[in-house]
């Protein structure tokens, strides 16, 4: 693989890798560093890329491993929860509605952040990035049953908390 095909084929996956790393680390700077390191590793191992069927899943797996390494090496430093800001301004919405939506999304973010790590990773890969079950199995090195069970549990928890939010207007 030469530099040109690396730029055309591999680099476009950077945003997916960045969001995945961000899910682990909560810091954009750390996530950026991890993605950069992933690309350097992929470049150094580019000779193997012809043997890899799904190189994007491979990159995601490296991202996960490096993010976990970084969490371990920064164990003294508490990983802070992701501070999410959403730009939900729309012409059709009043400022009050916009604030309401923003608050709902913030609460949903907190619900997802509170999920166990495996469930959080799976819901991110499925509902944000739209990966298939097989790809999720490959990225997280889990079997199909584990992926499905964890996704079911994650969605179930989110649903219960959303129902409570709706019922009590939280």
């Amino acid at each position, binding site marked *: 693989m*030469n*530099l040109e095909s*690396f*730029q055309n084929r591999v*680099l476009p996956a*950077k*945003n997916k890798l*960045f*969001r995945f790393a*961000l899910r682990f680390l909560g810091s954009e700077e750390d996530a*950026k560093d991890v*993605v*950069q390191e992933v*690309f*350097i590793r992929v*470049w*150094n191992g580019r000779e193997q890329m012809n043997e890899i069927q799904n190189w994007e899943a491979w990159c995601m797996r490296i991202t996960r491993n490096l993010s976990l390494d970084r969490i371990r090496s920064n164990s003294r430093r508490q990983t802070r929860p992701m501070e*999410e800001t*959403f*730009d*939900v301004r729309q012409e059709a919405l009043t400022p009050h509605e916009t604030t309401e*939506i923003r608050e*709902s*999304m913030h609460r*949903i*973010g907190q619900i*997802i952040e509170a999920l166990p790590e495996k469930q959080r990773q799976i819901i*991110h890969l*499925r*509902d*944000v*990035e*739209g990966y*298939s079950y097989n790809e999720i199995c490959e990225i997280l090195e889990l079997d199909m049953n584990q992926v*499905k069970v964890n*996704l*079911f549990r994650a*969605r*179930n928890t*989110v*649903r219960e908390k*959303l*129902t409570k*939010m*709706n019922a009590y207007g939280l």
Partner: protein
Amino acid sequence: MDSNKIEALLKKYWEAETSQEEEQQLREWFRIHEAPEPWKETAAMFRYFDETKKKSLDDASFNATVVSHLPAARTGRVRKLVYNTLRIAAGVSVLCLATWFVHKEMQESTDPEVVDTYSDPKLAFEETKKALLLISQSFGKAEKQARKINMFNEAQEEIRKEKTTQEQKL
């Protein structure tokens, strides 16, 4: 798509039984339609997923940073080639030197008789003849000297005999 279909899809979604296509349909529906009150939080959840997916890295500067950190592909390959060639050349040189030294040592330790042996019989005959001639000339010189010594011995013998005859007469 009517709301009954969406309700059925949502039920499947919470059970983690929807396909990727069905999940895409749900996302699209909540993106376009204003969700009724009971689905307000669910709509916020899909919006949360959409907004999370918008998080991205700064394209141009990030790509440039990554590329600048990659070990240069071409120079790396050329350097590797040169390095390998030099290694092979060094190996061959050591081998040649070793062979030359061994050969030299063997030549020096060979018996002189073996070195002076002739393979051509005519030449060997000529050389032997020369050697014998040289020896015979030396023998000739030695014989002349020996004759002189012999003459001296004979003269001494004559003098002794003469002395003995005179003593007997007296």
